[in-house]
């Protein structure tokens, strides 16, 4: 997993005048910052919501919220953390109030741009099926628990970071992750499609 840039790196990347330009609503400054942060935001949105259709709309919505909120940005958190918090809220709102009927079927992998080699279509097919199964069960989780789980277990963020992104305290976050993990894994274990999943992982060997 690609580590996020440190705050020092980000601070070095966004000069004070850029941030000030964002606060004033200057288009060029906003483009500079949002374009740089967009891939990370897009990734978070895709992982939480789990569908391709509407992902661009969610990203646009995240940008709009950020642009409106930038005048009040005081720099207590890094720009990336602040923007990620907005993206997480946007995703959770979408989960709780879907703007359109959600399809469970996922095609997050488009045109062979995923990590699997184009010479292994079988693996790509299996990866798609696996992804579909995972999100089929993730869809049944409470949106808040699901978001906490994705941020912690998939994004690899610490409990403290997840708490900050979701505006909750640490024990609440831990409970959410624990319940989501138990419910999801209980369902996956009962799903016969997962019987072969662990063969390549050595059934949990370190």
């Amino acid at each position: 997993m690609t580590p996020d840039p440190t705050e020092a790196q980000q601070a070095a990347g966004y000069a004070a005048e850029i941030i000030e330009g964002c606060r004033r609503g200057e288009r060029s400054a906003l483009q500079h910052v949002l374009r740089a942060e967009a891939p990370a935001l897009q990734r978070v949105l895709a992982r939480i919501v789990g569908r391709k259709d509407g992902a661009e709309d969610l990203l646009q919505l995240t940008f709009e919220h950020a642009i409106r909120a930038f005048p009040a940005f005081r720099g207590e958190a890094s720009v990336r953390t602040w923007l990620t918090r907005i993206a997480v809220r946007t995703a959770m709102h979408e989960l709780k109030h879907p703007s359109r009927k959600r399809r469970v079927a996922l095609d997050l992998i488009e045109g062979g741009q995923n990590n699997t080699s184009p010479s292994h279509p079988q693996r790509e097919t299996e990866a798609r099926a696996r992804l579909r199964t995972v999100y089929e069960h993730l869809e049944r989780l409470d949106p808040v628990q699901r978001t906490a789980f994705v941020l912690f277990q998939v994004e690899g963020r610490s409990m403290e970071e997840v708490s900050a992104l979701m505006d909750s305290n640490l024990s609440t976050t831990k409970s959410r992750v624990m319940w989501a993990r138990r419910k999801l894994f209980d369902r996956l274990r009962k799903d016969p499609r997962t019987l072969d999943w662990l063969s390549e992982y050595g059934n949990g060997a370190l």
Partner: protein
Amino acid sequence: MASRCVEFEELIDREARGWSEADRLRIERHLGDCEGCRHTLGLSRVVRDTISAASELGRDASIERALTRALDASTHAPRKERFATSRRLRVTAGSLALAAAAALLLWFSQARQQAPVPQPTLAAVPTSTKSSVLTTEPEQTAWIETHEVERRTFAHASVVLSANARVRFDDANSELLLERGSVEVHVDPAPRRAFRVTTRRFRVEVLGTKFTVSDDSVAVVEGRVRVLDLQGRAIRNELHAGEQFAYGSQEATVSTEEPAEAPASAEKKRSSTRTPSRIPADVWLARAREALSRGNSDAALAHIVQAEASSPRRNDRAEALTLRAEAALVAHDTSSAIRLYELVASKYGNLTAGENGAFAAAQVAARSDPAHARILFTRYLARYPQGRFSEEAKKRLISLKTK
């Protein structure tokens, strides 16, 4: 079913920040003993890698489109003005709402300080069922007495009250006071609020689970609870699914003896006296799942036998047979597992368990006997052409035919 090993969960939570050498040794030792945790760790990695791999994308075009539209939307003058107006309206509306709430609060607090409200009559106080009686106390702390088994909702918990139960709910503390009878409680974990049941002898604290409490016992069906004395000291820090606490001695013991009769089964009995307890099939099945998650197929089979002897419903019988198949897998008896899955499919074909069994039989067979697997996948597709696993079955069939 996910492992219930608390120690393992603490360690897996640390994986994101990297394990120390000491962590690694502890984990290896634990995984050596616990098949359930091995399975959970494997699933955790599968889920993480599956989602991570899929979302590593480059979508420059869509990023640019989203960014351009967002900037255009934000810098367009009329929208800005509308936004400014709507924000003022929201602020104004918010202020009005705050003022209204403050006025309401003030009125309410003044009303409570006035002379007590006259005792309500039964006709004046709404009830959820004709079978219960509200004793004459202010509505906020009314006791509920039942003549028959009934189900009520208190905050985020669904509660089945036994016949002749007497309870009162304190909404502020999410606490159900149980003076008489027993309750079966199913707490929704989503709101993330604790729920307590207090008897005359002890208190049960829970966060999202299903359990039964009577005067002198607690039995957990799902999740886990903590049992405290009335001074708040822990009698039992954690009681897991399938376990029971019986209050009867200075040092309360936990046993797997039969818990107090679940209120739902009291529907069949009209007597108000306590009858000999009997564990329902779904409790035995939960214990069997727990045993399988720990890799203990022998214990699981013992619980399954008990479930099958407990007058199970058809769904429970289907699940019992499915668990027998899983127990065979845990015991590495693949041929028995396939046979049992096929039996589930043939006996309960119209249930979800039946379809699951049909597909599972083919999946397991595919590991060692491709010819048999082809037959089973074909049989699955013939029976469930639009089934939940039909796409997967078609792809497996194609891959098996090319082998």
